[in-house]
């Protein structure tokens, strides 16, 4: 595993425990009631799920999206399956784009991730459109996706931090 496919540095393999913990922590962040700020807060579960779907497409995919979606539905009092559907679509797209996205630096990865996040939000809006006789959300509804795409670069470094550790702890250490 490299940072991107063009970089020379070999990273340590991702630890499954860390992957699950990060998803759990993202779920916890999604449960935080941000109140008036919730229009600007990105959907952490969608973001972290997209990240691992791109980094580890063989292990993290639609099944995780489905389960996490149900848990988010419970927390938000939304219709059962609304977030699940959106995350399944998101996981599918992220898995499908994984090989391509890894060739780009983090900033250009964010450009790839933005439409994925937007499509998952459009899926949710479509569910409401069908269920509630043509209710269309305001434009600010898509703000969390844009904030999420901006947060992609710092998120990449935070989630890859354990993999940046050297194999031999003493290798680069100053005396």
């Amino acid at each position, binding site marked *: 595993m490299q940072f991107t496919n063009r970089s020379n540095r070999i990273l340590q393999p991702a630890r499954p425990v860390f992957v699950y913990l990060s998803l759990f922590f993202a779920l916890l962040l999604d449960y935080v*009631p941000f*109140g008036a700020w919730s229009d600007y807060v990105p959907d952490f579960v969608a973001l972290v799920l997209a990240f691992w779907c791109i980094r580890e497409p063989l292990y993290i995919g639609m099944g995780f999206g*489905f389960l996490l979606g*149900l848990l988010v539905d*419970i927390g*938000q009092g*939304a219709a059962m399956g609304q977030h699940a*559907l959106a995350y399944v*679509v998101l996981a*599918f797209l992220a898995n499908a784009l994984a090989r391509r996205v890894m060739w780009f630096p983090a900033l250009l990865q964010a450009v790839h991730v933005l439409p994925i996040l937007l499509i998952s939000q459009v899926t949710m809006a479509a569910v409401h459109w069908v269920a509630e006789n043509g209710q269309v959300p305001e434009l600010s509804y898509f703000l969390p996706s844009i904030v999420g795409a901006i947060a992609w670069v710092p998120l990449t470094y935070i989630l890859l931090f354990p993999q940046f550790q050297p194999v031999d702890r003493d290798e680069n250490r100053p005396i």
Partner: protein
Amino acid sequence: MPSADFQTHPVFRRGVAPHIRLLVYIAICVVMLVADLRFRYLEGLRSWLSVATYPMRMVAAEPVNLVGNTTEYFSNLATVQFENADLRRRQLSDAEKLLTLEHLERENAKLRELLRMSKRVRTYSVPAEVLYSAPDQFSRKVILDQGKQEGVEPGLAVVDADGLIGQITRVYPIQSEVTLITDRNQAVPVQVARNGQRGVMFGTGHGRLELRFVLANADIKEGDRLVTSGLDGVFVPGLPVAEVETIERDAGAFANITCRPLGGVESSTRVLVLSRAELPPPPPKPETGEPKLPTLPPALPRATQEN
């Protein structure tokens, strides 16, 4: 193409193709959505998952509470003094009202007896606290810290000190979900306090209310107070709901009436869940077909009070 005698090497096996899996998951989600939205089949699963994730949600709410408490602690002394003065003033005016209330209640009971009218609706109430508002963009909902164990039932009215704020729509074992009256799908039967003109109040989804099905020439003015009519057999009659803000009468048979909610619909943190303690008489039976019985919560041995 894999033929019958060809087997993929274990290294290359990745299970079912992603497209097929996507279709299967989408099918499951759509079935769940229909089962939940149209038929409410998934309430069991929902309430089970709600209890399972309860500790997580409490942990998540803690930092927000901490920030709120800290700002409250450091709040200006002047604010507290102002609040104190306001509360004292309120207490004085309430004390006067309380003194007359007892007298009026006795008088009311006597007059009703004289007129041979039925007794007023009795209510029971459960005090509750708003834990958080559901961050779903498409609805206006809040979660209360009281659930089935405390006697909360679906359909009950939720009020704060100033008026109606919503209705219980889902009950979990230890929590319950309130749909606020500003939600697009929430309807409340109301009447004008001044003259008894009836109408149905709908939310608009952005903090205002809309009084529908009132004729354009009806006697209704800006500033009129609207109270629940109790005709639905669920809400207690006479709860203050809203005040008429604007009226447009040039839009056809019905007037366009916008109202401002009286209660702190989006801001209240301490609320009361109110219910009728007794079932209202069943509606008149239709000539044909099965008679429909009102699906109301049973009377509970709670602190009942005369309303």
